[in-house]
């Protein structure tokens, strides 16, 4: 009774704000508990493996911390250093160069693959598997395959070059071409994005194409006026995940260059530089600051793309 009296004014205030809300029944509370229990693996996962590291990283980014000793508070020092550090600048340029090429090329390649997977032929399942299989090869293994692929004498690229009599070229030995090799390598993972496109393509009503054909629309016109607009939400999704993935490019450069980011820092991508700072130079505070900056830039870019998407994304297909 005492409790009820004490909470009465608060309860009245709530009732005033939301008159229609009645207290939860025992059954509803039980269902809530069960519901929470069912999603608890996800909740625990997000809290322990996402939220906690995120907050921890944010705090550590304001300190000088080797990973073992007591962190020393440096305020925004690491962020100021990041903007003045020439290697951060180089790694940002490398990453943007990569993203600028890999993301648009990836969108087109995945779309082409998806359209190939969507052909109305009997063996389509075989094609779909064949086109998707390269995406299952881990980036680590793919890097080794590419080392052979670009071998100056025995690799496919130089074999083609030799037809024209040119000298053998070590594509991994020059900063720009090394980055381009990694861009090309990324395209072998386009199968994942292609599957998402495929789902989008299957969702477009066939009647629209039939009507267009009756109206005499060419294949290109059908693609431009039906496929592309109705696929635009999927393109947006692949664009955002593509940008996010490109900003975090790491494994390929790590394997190809033994973790050095060479030649001449040509493949020193942002994540690789972050990793080196954290684990080779034991500057976990500075590395955390770099991680926070990447997070902010990633969110900002996703927001920008989302905002721009209002001009080109059509959500009509679900209504159709």
């Amino acid at each position, binding site marked *: 009774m005492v409790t009820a009296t004490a909470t009465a004014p608060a309860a009245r205030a709530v009732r005033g704000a939301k008159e229609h809300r009645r207290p939860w029944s025992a059954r509803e509370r039980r269902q809530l508990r*069960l519901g929470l*229990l069912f999603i*608890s*693996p996800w909740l*625990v996962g997000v809290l322990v493996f996402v939220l906690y590291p995120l907050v921890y990283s944010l705090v550590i980014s304001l300190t*000088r911390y*080797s*990973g*073992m*000793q007591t962190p020393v508070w440096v305020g925004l020092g690491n962020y100021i250093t990041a903007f003045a550090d*020439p*290697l951060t600048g180089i790694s940002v340029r490398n990453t943007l160069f990569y993203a600028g090429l890999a993301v648009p090329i990836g969108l087109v390649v995945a779309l082409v693959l998806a359209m190939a997977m969507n052909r109305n032929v009997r063996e389509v399942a075989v094609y779909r598997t064949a086109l998707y299989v390269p995406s299952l090869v881990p980036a680590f293994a793919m890097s*080794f395959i590419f*080392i*052979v692929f670009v*071998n*100056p*004498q*025995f690799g496919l690229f130089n074999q083609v070059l*030799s037809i024209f*009599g*040119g*000298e*053998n*070229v*070590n594509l*991994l*030995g*020059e*900063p720009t071409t090394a980055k381009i090799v990694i861009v090309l390598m990324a395209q072998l993972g386009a199968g994942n994005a292609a599957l998402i496109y495929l789902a989008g393509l299957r969702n477009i009503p066939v009647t629209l194409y039939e009507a267009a054909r009756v109206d005499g629309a060419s294949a290109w016109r059908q693609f431009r006026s039906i496929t592309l607009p109705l696929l635009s939400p999927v393109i947006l999704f692949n664009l955002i995940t593509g940008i996010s993935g490109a900003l975090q490019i790491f494994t390929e450069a790590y*394997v*190809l*260059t*033994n*973790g*050095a980011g*060479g*030649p*001449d*820092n040509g493949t020193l991508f942002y994540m690789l530089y972050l990793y*080196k700072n954290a*684990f*080779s*130079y*034991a500057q976990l505070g500075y590395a955390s600051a770099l991680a926070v900056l990447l997070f902010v830039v990633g969110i900002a870019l996703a927001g920008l793309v989302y905002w721009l998407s209002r001009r080109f994304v059509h959500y009509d297909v679900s209504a159709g």
Partner: protein
Amino acid sequence: MIDRRTFLALTGAAGAGALITGCANRSGSGPNEVRLWGMGGVEAEAQQQIVDAFTAENPSVTVSQSLVPSTGTGDATAAITAVRGGTAPDLWLMDRFAVAQYASLGLLEPLDPLIAQHENDDFLDQWMPFALNELRYDGQIYGLPFDTDSRGVFYNRTTLADSGLDPDELDPSNGPVTLDRVLEMNGQIAQEDDRGNYTRLGLIPWDAEGWALTWMFGKGAVFFDDATCAVDVSSDEVVGVLDSFYTWAREMDYPRVDAFKATYQPPNAPPAQTSFFGGQQGMQISGPFTINSIATYVPDLDYGFTYLPLWNEGDDPYTWSGGFSLVAPRGSSLSPAVWEFIKFYCGAPGQRIAMTPLKKIPTHLDVLADPEGFDQNLSFFADQLEFSTSRPPLPIGSLFWDSLVQAQQSVLIGSADAQTAAERAQARVTPQMDLYCPFELPPGFGTTGA
């Protein structure tokens, strides 16, 4: 039949239990257990012999081995994770160059208390002083040395003879050759195909152990000054070597040399696939570890080795030495069993067992002096210890190393001249070194004389 409520409760409890168990720190080894992160690959067998001999003498002790390679360039991922996760081993075989850095981070346990507790004052006199100095940080010792090495030029006698050169000219009994002579020989060895690709080369100055740092030692570069607590990677000697690298890379046409290396020895190629073993490269700067690889992968190779090329006629010979050591990561039990094992492994018994099969040079003075102590084919490299030196054990070792390697790459590719590359390296190391000042290198550092 189990009802839904019981099922959920049991699942929840099991999940929570797993989480708690997973998060709990693993307690250290028992008093009779030694957990070792050690050698792998072709070297694992020699380590097993040490372990077998130790357990024969100490049957109550169990030694469990895992392969966790230590990188000389100081990637501490494995160690930081293990120490923080409470799963660090009792002992770790580690490149000595990284020890000062790991010690400065607090990743390693100093061994001084164990030495004071179990040993006499002259205990450390058993090992070469230079190797011990690589293990000192802030006045304490963080490991015991195992093997060492030195650098020289390996030459393929067949390739030299095929090029019209007399391989005996490079015999070490003739003394060191000059750089000018090596470059001259290079001209005679080099071959190209009709498209202009190199198919054979002599000595690629920057290849393998031909780090800019190796050549800088030849010019007498000093990288650290105790008085000013300053790392110097822009001295005249450093810039001079980088300038030579710049010139050589232009003269040899760096992209073509790079294509040659990537052809015959692509990145991450298996250890048996090298342009030197394949006979495409007549000379290569390397160390005694190459003798082991040759014995394993190309036992029929007709080869020899000699001193590093002198910058000028009449200069003193030079080289530098590194090697491995056993260290105790934080969290090691440091039990008497662990102490007995580290003494056995790095002491005379372990080095006597392993140096011959591993084709390494001992750091234990008794074993080094004993003709049976190690493969006498390595005696040339062991004799070089009289005048060798070692890299400075700095708390910013990996940054120091990366900065020099970066400067080297810039001048080779031609994206910077020697002065600019050295200044960039200096700008990277100075602010980081300042964080550790005042700091002094161990007394007597840099002198390897046995």
